[in-house]
């Protein structure tokens, strides 16, 4: 087994990034104009990278499958973005953010990358404010913060429940400025379907114009993949319908190692599914756990009463309720990390306490918060004996200010009013910590090919803390990649323009053509969605919140079968040379069907519980932590980076051993 070189700089962790920047090769401005960079994806990571690289003088081509960069999936992020500003003076610091992120990730992230992330986090907020991002403010005019799970400080900046939207529109505006100047050429409704490698270096991509169906060759001196996460391998997730793994999977098949595919975040607070026609799941932001209390009834009769509608949740008194997070984890209560909260909800529902018809829902209740805020507000307004109704109204107003759009979203979907009755929530697939393996410079194992944002594996270990993905995306794009890419490109200044007539481009285009042509001509009997749903079911049942060896082996076999069926029996209507959403989906699902198998293989190989990856074989057997997940640092303290060998089942494992010099390795405890 080879050793992966993470290129982590030497020296004390707090000096590494500064020293690294000082030692990096630079490209002079005149030469930057001769260098092309392709950025696939215009979410927070790709959008910020494209804008920054163009500002620096590189010629940028950016690609997105939506009709505008502004619609990348980052737009949907709700709750907030972390930064170690310590504006609240509650003891926050770069070190603490670093520590929380490594601990939250259950000690499966690379220390040096996480430290850098914490270090640049403060600049992100400065940058966004300068761009006109309207973050929430306090009455004094300064920026407001909230708390997220897994931490004891308030470091999350937000814009109501639309933080991702506002940050993405900030990056989009920075892109627009460069598009207007001709420094970025934007290719909307274009999907990258292959990477072109020439003499071992990434030299371009094959993209399909989704309006005309035409295949195009694009060359560049470096290719950045910022294509987001692969949560849709589960079919149902909180990701957008179009979110997919194709860009990442295509570079994997061309030599980029895929790291820790099994690390998936199942988010505890999502709206439960309502039927078989369900096309996606909707997140209710983690920020709600600041003010919402999670519970199920204590007694089975009450569970039945609630399910049948005979009793209302409001009818149960406090001691008839089981606030199970507060009970099990008194120190963190409702703000335990996501993986812990999700498993606890599953535990209650598996034990029969689920509160909806399917038995897969728990309550998220705002009544206490409404009362508390109402009283505070009444006091401020000088109302000394407010009535209950007045308190409630004032409290509701505060809650509306904080979470108005989420409450509206909930009500529109479920037809229930969450100001009056608790929300019903259940865990759902949300984020993928795994992804393309990258070194400290964010370069993949293919020279000249980089990965940023959710597409890479880098900063979150086995579990991501809330409000850290937005931070990572913007850190990668605004502050890391623009520096580190220069190191590689400084060797490219004499290369000159790269011809798209090279045989490698011709061959890559033919590969794509053949693949799509095959899909169209199978003319089988079942729709693409049929196969995607089958895959999703196997993933959720066997590779979901709780995993064991037998189930994982079975998953591998089942996925392989579904994949074989797919290639024999899928029905893709229409032709290649037109706007054809079914063909787009088919190509993506084909890749998910391979990724899914590697995912299960990785989960099987990792016989420990860590973060979002819970192996039933690996739990604490006694003591205070009895029943909690048990990490195995002796045998599994590494990043699993998989090399493609022609078949997911035969993927070759490479290990990057993780070193913890600045943080002591401990079992996580949120008790």
């Amino acid at each position, binding site marked *: 087994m080879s050793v992966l070189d993470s290129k982590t700089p030497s020296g004390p962790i707090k000096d590494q990034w500064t020293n690294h920047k000082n030692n990096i090769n630079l490209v002079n401005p005149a030469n930057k104009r001769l260098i092309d960079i392709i950025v696939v994806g215009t979410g927070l990571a790709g959008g910020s990278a494209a804008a920054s690289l163009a500002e620096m003088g590189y010629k940028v081509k950016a690609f997105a499958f939506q009709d505008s960069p502004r619609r990348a999936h980052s737009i949907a992020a709700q709750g907030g973005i972390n930064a170690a500003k310590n504006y609240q003076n509650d003891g926050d610091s770069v070190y603490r953010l670093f520590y929380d992120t490594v601990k939250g990730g259950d000690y499966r992230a690379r220390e040096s990358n996480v430290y850098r992330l914490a270090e640049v986090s403060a600049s992100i907020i*400065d940058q966004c404010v300068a761009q*006109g991002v309207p973050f929430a403010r306090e009455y004094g005019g300064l920026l407001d913060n909230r708390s997220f799970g897994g931490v004891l400080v308030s470091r999350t900046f937000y814009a109501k429940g639309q933080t991702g939207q506002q940050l993405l529109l900030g990056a989009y505006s920075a892109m627009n400025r460069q598009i207007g100047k001709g420094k970025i050429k934007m290719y909307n409704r274009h999907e990258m379907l292959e990477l072109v490698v020439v003499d071992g270096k990434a030299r371009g991509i094959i993209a399909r114009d989704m*309006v005309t169906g035409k295949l195009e060759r694009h060359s560049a001196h470096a290719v950045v993949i910022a294509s987001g996460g692969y949560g849709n391998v589960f079919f149902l997730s909180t990701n957008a*319908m179009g979110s997919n793994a194709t860009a990442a999977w295509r570079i994997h098949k061309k030599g980029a190692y895929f790291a820790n595919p099994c690390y998936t975040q199942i988010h505890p607070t999502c709206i439960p599914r309502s039927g078989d026609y369900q096309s996606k799941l909707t997140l209710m932001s983690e920020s709600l756990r600041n003010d919402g209390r999670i519970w199920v009834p204590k007694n089975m009769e009450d569970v039945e009463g609630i399910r049948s509608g005979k009793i209302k949740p409001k009818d149960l008194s406090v001691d008839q309720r089981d606030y199970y997070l507060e009970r099990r984890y008194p120190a963190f209560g409702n703000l335990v990390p996501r993986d812990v909260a999700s498993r606890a909800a599953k535990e209650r529902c598996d034990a029969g306490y689920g509160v909806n018809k399917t038995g897969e829902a728990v309550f998220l209740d705002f009544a206490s918060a409404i009362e508390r805020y109402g009283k505070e507000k009444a006091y401020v307004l000088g109302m000394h004996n407010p009535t209950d109704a007045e308190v409630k109204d004032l409290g509701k107003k505060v809650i509306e200010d904080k979470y108005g759009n989420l409450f509206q*979203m909930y009500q529109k979907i479920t037809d229930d009013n969450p100001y009056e009755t608790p929300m019903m929530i259940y865990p759902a697939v949300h984020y993928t910590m795994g992804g393309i393996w990258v070194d400290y410079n964010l370069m993949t194992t293919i020279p000249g090919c980089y990965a940023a944002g959710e597409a890479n594996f880098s900063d979150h270990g086995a579990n991501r803390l809330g409000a850290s993905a937005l931070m990572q995306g913007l850190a990668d794009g605004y502050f890391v990649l623009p520096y580190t890419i220069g190191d590689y490109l400084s060797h490219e200044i004499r290369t000159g323009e790269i011809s798209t007539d090279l045989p490698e481009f011709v061959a890559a285009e033919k590969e794509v053509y053949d693949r799509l042509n095959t899909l169209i001509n199978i003319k089988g009997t079942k729709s693409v969605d049929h196969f995607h749903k089958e895959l999703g079911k196997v993933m959720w049942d066997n590779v979901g919140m709780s995993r064991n060896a037998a189930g994982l082996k079975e998953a591998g076999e089942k996925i392989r079968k579904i994949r074989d069926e797919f290639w024999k029996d899928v029905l893709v209507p229409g032709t290649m040379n037109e706007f054809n959403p079914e063909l787009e989906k088919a190509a993506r699902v084909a890749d998910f069907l391979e990724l899914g198998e590697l995912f299960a293989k990785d989960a099987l190989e990792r016989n420990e519980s860590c973060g979002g990856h819970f192996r039933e074989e690996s739990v604490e057997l006694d003591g205070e932590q009895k029943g909690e997940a048990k990490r195995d640092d002796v045998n599994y303290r590494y990043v699993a980076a998989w090399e493609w060998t022609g078949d997911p089942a035969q993927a070759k494992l490479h290990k990057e051993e993780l070193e913890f010099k600045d943080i002591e390795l401990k079992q996580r405890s949120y008790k």
Partner: protein
Amino acid sequence: MSENMKLTLKVWRQKDAKSQGKLETYQLDKISEHMSFLEMLDVLNEQLINTGEEPVAFDHDCREGICGMCSLYINGEAHGPDRGVTTCQLHMRMFKDGDTIYIEPFRSKAFPVIKDLVVDRGSFDRIQHAGGFVSVNTSGNTIDANTIPIPKEDADNAFDAATCIGCGACVATCKNSSAMLFVSAKVAQFSLLPQGKIEAKDRVLNMVHQMDLEGFGNCTNTGACEVECPKGISLENIAIMNKEYFKASTKA
């Protein structure tokens, strides 16, 4: 309440930008009121695929009302009969058993049809290229974020304007196909923030100029846009933009 609605759909079908389009009729049954409108179209498409017909093309992505990708003109209303929602957030409980539903694309000269219900809203992007930004480099060497306090009210109002999702319902609804609500949302956001004030003049002139070039119509204050806007973008913003435009053109 129904798990079993029967519906008649009249859907605009158009092969591509150059072809003529027309309304086709489809029958659906077993539609649950808990479905979203787009899930109902998924059911239609599954049915079409299984009977060897071409599925209906429509734009969508987030399916939670934030990306602005979904469009659809439903029974004569942009984003359908519900208020304050996008098409993807519209639920079938707004309809009843036996209904006939007309589904058409967002129509405007500046939004050419690509296929069926999918239109090209590139004109919106081009307006943003003309001035929808603050000219600050992403170097990170900016001043500390709390150096300039901003009154909460201004920040909140800027935020409200900034929640526009660029869907185009305002244009599709307007009898003049005016894009004033969309453009004014961006202009107003920046005009309320100290960071945006510096380039206020060029911004409004350039964005309005581009808006005219794209072939959007004039605003005659009918207010239909505000009614159909899924994000509650207020007509106030148009007033702010008019003021900014007046200031900019008289100083020029």
